């Protein structure tokens, strides 16, 4: 199996995790992939993905979005990839590896990038149903499937370290009551000191996570289908329905052991500083490797190892002399955001003996910072919780070993930061790739105006991705290309335009673009946006005069355009309550105009296949029967979904249907930055799914709980609780204020969830404004809503009686009776649908 002279060097890489893949990209960057015949063989069924950001999978990032493999990468570099095919044995004499599927792969160079396996404590019941590890996307899918069972409402994470808290975040996002059990007396005992752990605990408990420290798990009891109780040594058991183990990792070294390679005392494949194992033809990188007796469970040192190994492999492939690159033992400094809390450590405070500690502890502001310096003023270690803005400068001094004359300034600068002071370019942005603010801003100034180009140029954000929000923020604030602006015609954002139009009482797009934009012009972005702002502020008919020309096609024809150019019609059905007569009317209209009918997710009925000239005829019938526009076509309130509440349901505690109708009739027609969906549930069983709506109301014994910021769709979001036990009047004033504040401040096409995320202070800020009235805007916001409610009119009723407004509803201006010849339907399941191209021959109208 040994190589014939002259043929390319055969490289086999076992494992395609983050570090294994970094090895490949490093080889590609060095131009070495053409001189190597590379085969990657991996146990997982997926190519490399961002394991550090696993919990974001629950926040809506798909497996594809987590992928670290650029499209076409393997093919472009001639790399053969065998996924889902674990290696069984390594034959060091023949230089081959054998895989589970029966393949034998010869190698000249072999790299082990097998990573680690989760450590599952051997407590009784640890392998029962409903008990999971937290390492792979496969694990996440299993956890999500288990959490979807109606009997599963409480989850526990065993392990309060870094990964355990990530897992807790995942359970929170799955909507479970979340517990964390830690053997040590405090959270993240490895990275943090007592003060840091205490600060972190305060933050995490505020999020609703229940933390149990000094708990030694003894057994897991189960009812046979899922766990029921977690039992401890000398403590009351914890009632739970799902268990996630995150009690540490162990190097995945089984293949190396079986092959007789040197193994470290506590496991792991022993390698030298060039990443070579005891067999010179085999290297090991990442979490499976042990360098100088140390094992590195972080991605940054893993990447360093991969880079060193790649340099040496490339040199071998090119026949070049042995390079000098060595792994220098990366430090374990990290900075990350755990459950929204910034946590960072530099060096290890546990090793910093004989140092002086400077501590800033602010339980009110939620920050804890400790800096350890030796007698010469050199930084030896630091812990930062709640505010890690000092991480970059501190890490910088730690790495250079420079003495700091007044080390307290390093902390003070962060604690007492002057907001007007220019930002420090040495502040770290990406700790995986060690990229600071200066480098990112430099790249933006050099023309990187998109996230992908910024990542490509600086490599920031390509590791764990934790800094991506920061990168996006810098793109917004630093980019001179007007990215913050609405479009190429306006450098102002939607919110800024809204304020100017409101305060200066502008009434036309012409005035607005003249004054604040680049006239003449406008486009399909700014025209509808300004039209929506004018509609939000003015509340008048949206299609008269200039305003009519600005509207998107849907608003322009007060209907929803479909793929073939026909429209769908949705009458409003407030709260989803409809009379038999109403249903009959809709049925008759649909039958007479031969429309396809479908029940929507918002408890109403959508009628498809209407041609432009049919819209007024259809609406004449609907309006005469008492229906009004459902605004399904607008960026505005869609529906208020409801359950039947106290009137019918044996569990209901409030009249949810009546409240839903009241809310729908109050906010109908409100033009907003994006669509708004609402729901009202009559009890905590939540049949109306209010927690997945922009505004969700859930009845309690004492009144109503108000949830905001939820949505379904591509990135489902769970709503956050804004206020509890409100009476009817305070519920309505809170929703009035919330909606008007959103309409005023949000960006174009920004749903409430991402708007709240982007606010400094998040939901807390919204609560301060809406409930606490900290900006003193309450009365103004309510007055704005009152004006909307007073001025509301059904847009279709206002159109039907006016011949001038009806004039636009023709397919052909010069042949008003001629239907569109390109619209062709066929029948399927006794209703119409647009014909597919292959059906056009022989199809009839």
């Amino acid at each position, binding site marked *: 199996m040994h190589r014939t002279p002259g043929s390319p060097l055969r490289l086999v890489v076992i494992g395609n995790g983050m570090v294994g893949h970094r090895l490949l990209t490093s080889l590609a960057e060095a131009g070495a992939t053409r001189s190597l015949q590379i085969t990657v063989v991996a146990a997982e069924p997926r190519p490399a993905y961002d394991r550090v950001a696993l919990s974001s999978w629950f926040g809506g990032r798909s497996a594809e979005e987590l992928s670290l493999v650029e499209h076409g990468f393997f093919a472009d570099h001639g790399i053969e990839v065998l996924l889902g095919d674990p290696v069984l044995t390594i034959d060091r004499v023949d230089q081959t590896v054998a895989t589970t599927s029966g393949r034998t792969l010869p190698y000249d160079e072999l790299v082990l990038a097998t990573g680690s396996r989760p450590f599952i404590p051997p407590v009784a019941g640890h392998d029962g149903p409903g008990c999971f590890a937290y390492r792979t996307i496969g694990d996440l899918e299993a956890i999500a499937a288990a959490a979807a069972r109606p009997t599963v409402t409480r989850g526990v994470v065993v392990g309060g370290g870094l990964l355990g808290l990530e897992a807790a975040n995942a359970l929170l996002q799955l909507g479970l009551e979340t517990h964390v059990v830690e053997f040590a007396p405090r959270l993240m005992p490895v990275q943090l000191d007592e003060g840091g752990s205490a600060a972190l605990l305060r933050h995490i408990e505020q999020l609703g996570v229940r933390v149990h420290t000094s708990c030694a798990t003894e057994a897991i009891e189960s009812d046979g289908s899922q766990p029921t109780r977690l039992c401890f040594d000398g403590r009351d058991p914890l009632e739970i329905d799902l268990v996630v183990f995150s009690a540490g990792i162990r190097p995945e070294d089984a293949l190396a052991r079986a092959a007789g390679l040197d193994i470290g005392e506590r496991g792991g494949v022993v390698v030298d500083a060039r990443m070579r194992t005891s067999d010179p033809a085999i290297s090991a990188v990442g979490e499976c490797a042990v360098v100088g007796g140390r094992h590195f469970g972080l991605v940054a040192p893993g990447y360093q190892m991969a880079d060193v190994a790649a340099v040496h492999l490339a040199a071998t492939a090119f026949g070049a002399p042995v390079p000098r690159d060595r792994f220098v033992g990366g430090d374990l400094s990290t900075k990350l955001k755990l459950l929204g809390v910034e946590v960072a450590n530099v060096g290890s405070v546990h090793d910093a003996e004989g140092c002086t500690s400077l501590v800033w502890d602010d339980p009110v502001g939620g920050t804890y910072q400790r800096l350890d310096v030796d007698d010469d003023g050199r930084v030896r270690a630091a812990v930062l919780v709640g505010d890690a803005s000092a991480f970059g400068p501190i890490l910088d001094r730690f790495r250079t070993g420079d003495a700091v004359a007044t080390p307290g300034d390093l902390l003070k600068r962060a604690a007492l930061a002057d907001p007007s002071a220019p930002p420090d370019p040495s502040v770290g942005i990406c700790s995986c790739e060690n990229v600071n603010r200066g480098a990112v801003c430099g790249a933006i100034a050099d023309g990187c105006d998109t996230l992908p180009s910024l990542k490509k140029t600086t490599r920031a954000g390509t590791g764990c991705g934790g800094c991506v929000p920061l990168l996006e923020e810098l793109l917004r604030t630093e980019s001179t290309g007007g990215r913050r602006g609405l479009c*190429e*015609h306006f450098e102002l954002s939607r919110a800024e335009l809204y304020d100017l139009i409101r305060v200066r009482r502008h009434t036309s797009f012409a005035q607005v673009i003249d004054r604040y934009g680049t006239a*003449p*012009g*406008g*486009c*399909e972005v700014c*025209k*509808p946006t300004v039209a929506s702002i004018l509609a939000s502020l003015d509340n008048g008919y949206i299609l008269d005069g*200039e305003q*009519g*020309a*600005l509207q*998107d*096609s*849907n608003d*322009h*024809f007060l209907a929803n*355009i479909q*793929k*073939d*150019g026909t429209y769908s019609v949705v009458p409003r059905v407030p709260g989803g309550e409809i009379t038999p007569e109403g249903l009959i009317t809709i049925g008759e209209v649909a039958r007479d105009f031969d429309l396809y009918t479908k029940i929507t997710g918002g408890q109403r009925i959508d009628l498809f296949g209407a041609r432009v000239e049919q819209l007024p005829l259809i609406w004449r019938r609907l309006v005469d029967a008492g229906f009004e526009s459902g605004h399904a076509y607008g960026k505005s309130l869609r529906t208020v979904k409801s359950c039947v509440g106290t009137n019918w349901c044996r569990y209901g505690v409030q009249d949810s249907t009546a409240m839903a109708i009241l809310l729908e009739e109050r906010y109908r027609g409100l033009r907003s930055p994006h669509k708004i969906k609402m729901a009202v549930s009559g009890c905590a069983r939540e049949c109306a799914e209010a927690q997945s709506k922009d505004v969700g109301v859930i009845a309690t014994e004492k009144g109503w709980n108000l949830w905001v910021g939820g949505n379904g769709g591509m990135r489902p979001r769970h709503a956050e609780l804004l206020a509890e036990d409100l009476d009817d009047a305070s519920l309505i004033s809170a929703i009035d204020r919330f909606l008007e504040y959103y309409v005023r401040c949000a960006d174009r096409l920004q749903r409430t969830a991402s708007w709240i995320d982007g606010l400094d202070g998040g939901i807390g800020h919204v609560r301060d404004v809406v409930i606490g009235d900290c900006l003193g805007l309450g009365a103004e916001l309510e007055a704005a809503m009152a004006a909307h409610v007073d001025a509301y009119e059904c847009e279709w009723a206002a159109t039907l009686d006016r011949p001038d407004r009806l*004039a636009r509803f*023709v*397919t*052909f*201006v*010069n*042949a008003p009776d*001629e239907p*569109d*010849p*390109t*619209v062709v339907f066929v029948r399927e399941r006794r209703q119409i649908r647009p014909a597919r*191209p292959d059906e056009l021959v022989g199809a009839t109208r």
Partner: protein
Amino acid sequence: MTLLEADRATWLAVCAADDLITGRGVAALVAGRAVAVFLLDDGEVCAVDNVDPCSGASVLSRGIVGATVVDGSPVRYVASPLRKQRFDLETGRCLDADEVIDLWPARVVDGVVEVSLEPSRRGNGPETIP
């Protein structure tokens, strides 16, 4: 187009100039084909195919007219209401996809909008007749 070509064209009156809204279009049936007629903000009228080649739907007249700059030159376009692909109203070229639509000479005579019965393919794309 040159004056000579214009003179040779046969014109169809489609609507009154007052029927058009600045920055917006209407569809007209011209020689059996659907044509989108727009009134631009400088008072000019122009006409292109109504069928959006990206979707096959006859909808371009219902799009929004916009302005941008391509290679340093100002371009006026219509954005399809379905997927927002933009079509240059002067050349028929799609700015976002490899498509070209036909242009139809259009003019206003005595307050009446007229469209030529023959399209002029002035685009530089694959369908262009040299």
